[in-house]
């Protein structure tokens, strides 16, 4: 155990930082495309934590959960980009604020 060793905590910290950056970006940005990318950042931070725990405890279930997260993220991006296309086609300079018009 001598010297520097990459521990599980390093990965968890990096995952938390990614989640944090993504969440802050989601809150401060108003371009719907960038907001979707920030959601991806948050999901990836969580995925990294899952894999770190899976490696740590030698348990394959973390990998399975990450696969499901990938699938759900893909579906989320597809629907989100469809919404963005529909909204931006109607008004090319729409921001997230303009989505309040969807309340009807």
């Amino acid at each position: 155990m001598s010297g520097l060793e990459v521990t599980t905590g390093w990965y968890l910290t990096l995952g938390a930082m990614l989640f944090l950056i993504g969440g802050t970006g989601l809150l401060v940005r108003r371009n719907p495309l960038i907001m979707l990318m920030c959601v991806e950042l948050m999901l990836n931070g969580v995925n990294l934590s899952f894999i770190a725990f899976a490696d740590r405890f030698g348990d394959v279930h973390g990998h399975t959960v990450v696969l499901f997260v990938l699938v759900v993220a893909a579906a989320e991006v597809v629907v989100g980009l469809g919404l963005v296309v529909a909204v931006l086609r109607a008004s090319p300079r729409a921001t997230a604020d303009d989505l309040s018009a969807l309340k009807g």
Partner: protein
Amino acid sequence: MVEVVVFAVAGAACLVGAVGVVLSRNPVHAALMLVMTLFGIAVLFVALQAHFIAAVQVIVYAGAIVVLFLFVIMLLGVDRAAELSMGALPAQRWTAAAFGLGGAAVLVWLVAAVDRIFKGTRSYELERAGIVGAEADAAATGYLADVNALARSLFSDYVYAFELTSLLLIVAVIGTVILARRSYGADGRRASQHGADGRRASRHGAENAPEPQETRQ
């Protein structure tokens, strides 16, 4: 030592990419920064013995999702529209500050405490369980080396969730087709031509119109 270097390089790429996504004004740059983050995470997955997940990460995220993002950016022409950073709403600003500071506090706690709670790596865990020597090497490197274990858990424990994801994907595809389709109206061709022309003209005008009140930070 190699692991430390790999972690440092990949982690730095992840963080730089993440900050770049949040800060870049051009959506195309943001998408490319996202690719950098995703590749960094894929490298870390390899370092964590998750080879299959790393491959899926590159194929699905970098290969499909980011391409989808870029496609939409190019399709809509919002890369030239640059950014809409007209200053955040006050409530938004406060929420973001609270989230950022609270998260940073948690992060500090994590850095301080995590090595105490989750001490060491997998080899440490094995050592504590009394598995040492060649046996520990095999257990540490070979436990997930194949996708058999993953497939077994996916198609046994999680088989219902797996089937549900197929339903989810079908619903997502149909929903997107309905959302992104241009509505041509019920009476077919005449309405569609007229509608398309009008829409194209209006969008053309909007793109070329000067934007005097476009403020950038």
